[in-house]
């Protein structure tokens, strides 16, 4: 039974389900409701089948390698290789796609009559199918085709809500950036082809010794930039905060939770699998990139008051944390410390899974809020917890998970990342040690700042009094939305409670890498729930924490309620208002909440403040009629990196334009000279 499910035929069924979903949605595009039903049904069916398939491969432990058919082109072979890492990613894709599709059943209803649901379903299925192909393709050109399908499908999804001009601009930026990244990836693959003679990943892996080390370093830099654009590392992240908010919410969840992980997947595949053995500085560079991305990501998130942009910046932060794990794994494996490398890889994989879960949860709940409020601006929210209590609860769970509070899953993957960094500080010597110390410092600050940011996000959105009239029209989300969010929240808790077994399982996936085949394990699970690193260096138990906490809170509540406080009454009054009337302007805003931190980090964030005053009498200037304060944060990356780059490219283009004289004779003389040069060169 297991062999039947973990077979190529089963994989084709998986792809077919998505393709049927795509085709059917397009056919049914005239009727909104039936397109939605068809598309959701096949998405859910496909995701469930994907979960089944991935679980079968993970349990059986056998990698699948097959060719999907002959292609007419010599360099392109439709080769697929599904090993444990690919199966894990298929699992993550299917899991998140399942819940996003369930969410979509209810969410897509608010696009009825405005846009074409059929095309939404078409691109949605194409997007998921593209992602599945990306993690399973084993030939460079096939991989690039799948990568393009994924990027182009997601472009159309980003610009789906095309009435808003900002969305179209965001989509364009996304398209340009993703193709810039793809150009770097193509360059890396071409270099690999030149020195190993093939585009097939398996062949490249066995022929990697033919690549000279300078070329290998170039390939590292090119693929770091190329896959980094997709993953959203600083400074190539500028498309993320624009594109993720523009897409419909369940698509944002998919993009943020899964699509950017495909960049990390390929980095793992290339650096830890194909291009081994690697020099030490690769790992240190990845660590550095991870540390800056995580710290800067969370700082930028603190400056945002658009709720989806805030979540997008947190995705950048969490990718940074995943890269911290990956970087340590690379460093340790280059220095031959394989058990530590395996530990770091497990930390990175665990954080990938966890982030997918809690980030999708956060995006879905943010989407429900935006659905009701019709604006993404957090400054117009407030008091929503009374109107949307369940959504608020799920958002709270997501916030606790992403801020790494026990017993939710985020804590355990950050704990593992910390452990791998601590081991690095112990085991390494001077220069690498300093990078690890700084990385651990970045991670420590990131945790605290993320907590601050989510207090701000949750507090400004759901607590206190409403800041705009629209809040009173908000209603609780419909059942499919609540079901999807609830399931993800439950998964968040479960992955935290069962972090021990999950970590050990991820370790077997880590061991499937050829360099880790015989590495001894540092992780152990005595008593079934205490995750231990080393032989007692560190240990944690999620289950114990939850149990202790629940018992403590019950005892406290019982004692207080029954033994001490029997006759007391609770009176409901008004918040202390110093004698004036309470207005919504008295409560703290999201911008005000974060302003202290923004000012503390003003060297990095470069905040600006402008005052404008309008007086009753412009000449005497005594009594102001109105005062405006404009707070801003300067976009450092645009100013110092992209704009100069753009200026150089534009100047070059302007000068190159002079070739185009508009004169046919000059054009023909160009042809003639080119002909002469070619003749001379080849003969």
């Amino acid at each position, binding site marked *: 039974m297991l062999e039947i499910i973990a077979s190529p035929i089963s994989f084709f069924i998986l792809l077919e389900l998505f393709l049927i979903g795509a085709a059917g949605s397009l056919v049914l595009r005239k009727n909104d409701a039936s397109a939605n039903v068809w598309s959701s049904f096949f998405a859910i069916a496909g995701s469930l089948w994907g979960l089944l398939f991935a679980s079968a491969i993970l349990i059986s432990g056998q990698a699948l390698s097959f060719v999907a058919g002959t292609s007419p082109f010599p360099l392109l072979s439709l080769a697929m290789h599904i090993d444990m890492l690919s199966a894990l990613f298929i699992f993550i894709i299917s899991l998140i796609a399942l819940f996003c599709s369930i969410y979509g059943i209810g969410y897509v209803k608010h696009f009825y009559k405005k846009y074409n649901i059929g095309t939404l379903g078409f691109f949605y299925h194409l997007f998921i199918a593209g992602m599945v192909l990306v993690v399973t393709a084993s030939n460079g050109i096939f991989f690039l085709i799948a990568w393009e399908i994924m990027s182009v499908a997601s472009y159309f999804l980003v610009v789906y809500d095309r009435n808003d001009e900002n969305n179209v601009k965001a989509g364009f930026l996304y398209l340009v950036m993703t193709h810039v990244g793809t150009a770097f990836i193509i360059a890396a693959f071409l270099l690999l082809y030149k020195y190993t003679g093939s585009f097939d990943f398996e062949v490249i892996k066995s022929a990697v010794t033919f690549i000279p080390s300078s070329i290998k370093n170039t390939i590292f830099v090119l693929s770091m930039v190329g896959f980094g654009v997709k993953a959203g590392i600083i400074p190539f992240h500028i498309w993320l905060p624009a594109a993720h908010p523009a897409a419909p919410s369940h698509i944002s969840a998919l993009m943020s939770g899964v699509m950017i992980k495909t960049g990390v997947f390929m980095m793992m595949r290339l650096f830890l699998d194909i291009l081994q053995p690697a020099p030490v500085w690769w790992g240190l560079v990845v660590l550095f990139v991870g540390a800056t991305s995580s710290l800067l990501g969370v700082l930028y998130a603190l400056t945002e008051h658009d709720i989806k942009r805030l979540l997008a910046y947190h995705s950048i932060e969490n990718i940074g944390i995943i890269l911290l794990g990956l970087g340590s794994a690379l460093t340790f494996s280059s220095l031959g410390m394989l058990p530590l490398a395996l530990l770091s890889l497990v930390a990175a994989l665990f954080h990938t899974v966890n982030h997918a879960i809690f980030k999708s949860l956060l995006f879905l709940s943010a989407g429900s809020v935006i659905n009701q409020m019709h604006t993404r601006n957090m400054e117009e929210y407030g008091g929503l917890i009374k109107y949307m209590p369940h959504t608020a609860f799920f958002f709270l769970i997501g916030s606790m998970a992403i801020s790494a509070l026990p017993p939710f899953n985020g804590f355990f993957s950050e704990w593992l990342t910390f452990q791998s960094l601590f081991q690095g500080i112990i085991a390494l010597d001077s220069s690498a040690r300093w990078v690890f110390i700084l990385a651990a410092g970045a991670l420590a600050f990131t945790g605290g700042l993320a907590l601050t940011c989510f207090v701000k996000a949750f507090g400004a959105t759901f607590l206190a009094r409403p800041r705009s009239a629209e809040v009173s029209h908000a209603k609780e989300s419909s059942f499919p939305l609540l079901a999807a969010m609830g399931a993800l929240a439950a998964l968040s808790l479960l992955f935290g409670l069962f972090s021990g077994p999950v970590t050990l399982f991820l370790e077997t996936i880590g061991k499937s890498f050829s360099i880790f085949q015989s590495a001894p394990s540092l992780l152990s699970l005595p008593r079934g729930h205490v995750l231990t690193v080393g032989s007692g260096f560190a240990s944690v138990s999620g289950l114990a924490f939850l149990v202790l906490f629940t018992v403590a809170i019950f005892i406290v509540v019982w004692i207080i309620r029954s033994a001490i406080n029997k006759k007391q009454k609770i009176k409901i009054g008004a918040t202390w208002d110093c004698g004036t009337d309470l207005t919504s302007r008295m409560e703290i805003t999201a911008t005000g909440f974060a302003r202290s931190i923004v000012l503390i980090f003003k060297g990095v964030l470069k905040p600006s403040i402008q005052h404008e005053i309008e007086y009753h009498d412009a000449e005497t200037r005594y009594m102001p009629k109105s005062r405006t304060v404009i707070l801003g944060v300067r976009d450092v990356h645009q100013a110092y990196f992209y704009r100069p780059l753009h200026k150089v490219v534009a100047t070059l283009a302007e000068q190159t334009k002079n070739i*185009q*004289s*508009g*004169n*046919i*004779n*000059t054009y*023909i*003389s160009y*042809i*003639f000279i080119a*002909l*002469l040069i070619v*003749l*001379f060169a080849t*003969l």
Partner: protein
Amino acid sequence: MLTLQFFLGVVFGTIIFLHLTKKNFGVALAYALQSLAITAILLGSFFETGNISLLFIALLVFIVKVILAPLFFIKLIQKHRLLFSVSTYLNIPLTLIIIAILSFVANSHKLAPLTGIIPANHTLLSLALSSMFLSLFLIINRKGALSQIMGILSFENSIVAFTIFAGLEQSPALQLGIIFNIFIWLIIATVFMSMIYKHFGSLDITSMKHLKD
């Protein structure tokens, strides 16, 4: 052999004449003469190989290139009243110097692999190659639309000569392809010339620089 060289010399000479002439009428006549020489070469090839299809092709070339095309151009000239061709970019002495350089390049050692495909026909091939280069130079040098078309057509003739002497022309499909090409070219040329004339009022293609932004 000598006759072939003679005919090829005619082709070469007509191209040089095309560079130097100022009257359009003479241009059309020179083209007719060139095509006549090509037909003669094709007939010579027929006599050599005995391929009957070559005879048909030679006849076809004669009809289209020697009679129809020049007539067409003369009609165009009379319709638009272009008796004089517009000027060139480079003056006559400089043109002749460049012609000499190009012929020298075509005959040079560097291009020997190209012209040495059939060692016996080496001089013929280098003559054909220099005809090609000169036709290209004609297109570059002249400003009138008619001269451009002439340049392309004589370029084609040079290619035909080159392929015959390089032993590559044996398939009639190639020749038919070239004839078909000429038809298409005539259509394009008419459209092009009438559009330029309608829009700019003259056939000087440098006036197209007003289209640049």
